[in-house]
């Protein structure tokens, strides 16, 4: 008898848990569903009461229409260009700096390691005016230099991640190469660097996403429409066509899908980076 009621309680608990999980999943997935289904609606369908999640009639037109309403491919080209260079920059510089901070015994490594976290906290609103002034004096606003140059100077979050990874590697390998007469540069390129593939994959994905999605930096430094990134173009599109939600959602879909694909492929790397560092990208 008592055993029975315990079983029943457990069963009810389990059922409640699954209902909670199902509802939460639905909540978290629904913006994606709204974006997806709206992009296949006619605009009048999107504005018909009662509002339905599914299109009453499936249409493809929003996609070509969205991409011709703004120079979509131009923006995408710009974004890909910036993203590629940013990823390259981060992948070159991050392991270099991280190596210096973890595998070379010098005074600066401690100081810099301490400063890394601090730089992550500096609000962009504090630095944006001086940075804007420098870049505009150098005639570099409306170029991609302000967006790409910083990626070749290292980003604290990536350096912290990679430094942690290096610290987990035994020094013996590098010491052995040293005894064999390899200089620091050879030790770095031949011994350390090949071992960093897993963490560099993680850094590469973060760098890709950061550059692809970045909104604030392009907004500050880019004002010529032909130089727009997808973020800027999409936002521009929204303020001009704020009643054409079917098309807007189609434009957003094209922006978001590469990110989802990237995430699907590299999910493990993603999770590891954040979980081990306790930091936000």
């Amino acid at each position, binding site marked *: 008898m008592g055993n029975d009621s315990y079983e029943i309680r457990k069963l009810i608990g389990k059922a409640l848990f699954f209902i909670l999980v199902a509802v939460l999943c639905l909540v978290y997935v629904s913006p994606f569903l709204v974006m997806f289904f709206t992009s296949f609606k006619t605009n009048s369908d999107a504005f018909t009461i009662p509002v339905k999640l599914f299109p009453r009639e499936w249409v493809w037109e929003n996609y070509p229409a969205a991409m011709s309403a703004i120079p979509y491919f131009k923006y995408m080209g710009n974004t890909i260009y910036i993203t590629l260079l940013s990823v390259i920059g981060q992948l070159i510089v991050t392991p270099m*700096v991280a190596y*210096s901070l973890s595998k070379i015994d010098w005074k600066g490594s401690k100081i810099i390691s301490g400063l890394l976290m601090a730089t992550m906290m*500096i609000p962009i609103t504090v630095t944006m*005016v001086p940075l804007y002034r420098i870049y505009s004096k150098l005639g570099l606003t409306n170029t991609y230099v302000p967006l790409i140059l*910083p990626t070749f100077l290292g980003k604290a979050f990536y350096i912290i991640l990679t430094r942690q990874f290096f610290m987990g590697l035994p020094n013996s390998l590098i010491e052995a190469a040293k005894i064999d007469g390899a200089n620091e540069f050879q030790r770095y390129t031949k011994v350390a660097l090949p071992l960093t593939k897993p963490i560099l994959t993680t850094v590469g994905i973060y760098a890709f996403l950061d550059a692809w*999605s970045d909104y604030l930096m392009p907004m500050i430094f880019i004002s010529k429409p032909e130089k727009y990134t997808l973020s800027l173009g999409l*936002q521009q599109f929204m303020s001009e066509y704020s009643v054409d939600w079917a098309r807007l959602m189609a434009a957003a879909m094209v922006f978001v899908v590469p990110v989802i694909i990237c995430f699907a492929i590299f999910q493990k790397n993603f999770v590891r980076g954040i*979980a081990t560092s306790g930091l936000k990208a």
Partner: protein
Amino acid sequence: MKLSQKQRDFRNGLLFALPWIIGFLALSVYPLIASLYYSFTEFNAVTTPKWVGFENFQDVFHDPLVWKSLRNTLFMVFISTPVNLFVALLLATIVTRNFKLKAAVRTAFFLPSVIPMVAATMVWIWMFDPTYGYINNVLSLFGVQGPAWLMDARFTKWALVLMGTWNVGTTMLVCMASLQEVPTSYYESAEIDGAGAVRKFFSITIPCIAHVLVYQAILGIINAFQYFQQVYIIVTANSGVKGGSAAGGPENSILMYPLYIFHNAFTYLKMGKASAMAWLLFIVVAILAVVMVKVTAKVTDSAGRE
């Protein structure tokens, strides 16, 4: 001349770290100092800064919109941050349990966090539409008449809070990692003592991950003080809408402090005033960061001693 090993290490270390050092000086140190100087000057994008003493700060303290924006930002700090932390912890607790489809559920919870901000904000603006939006239509299924969300000053900030809970994936992952480190033996012995799930959660789980929660809470507060990009997207998109304002939404109800800095700098071209506001923000964030380091060290320390 032959360098000693120590000198060589110093040279190599410096060379390898050089890109970061340059970046640190040019992109962090210089702008910080320049911004402090600018806060005592007056200039727009093209003119040379002219020294005006404390005028900008007086202007800041007497500008009612500064206070309004500060109140809006504090709303995010005190409402949005704890809500987000609670939701992240709830989601983390779910995905640490073992059940079928666990991986898929975790993906569903985390995926929103990687969606580009402009696209995500756009979808939410559409979902918040009072008449045709998904949210009010779902509410109406339950007989609830939803508010006008982003178009009604009373609800705009709550809409932001709601929108924020969609984007707690990273905090969730951090919580998840720390939950997994709680020794299962603790739970087992508690079960033998007859503790229920709630009791176990508050007596074991929370104390064990307290240091992570404190750290995430302070990080969340720091982020809340800097929160404005989403709002900028919303106010620009809705500027044409009745009751909307290009500056800060209906009745400036979502004019966040950093957004007002941005407007002063790049919309009104009062770069001196923007710098003064920015430096006040910087001081607050710096204090919080120091608190974060101190508190985290203390909590970790006391947890280690137990």
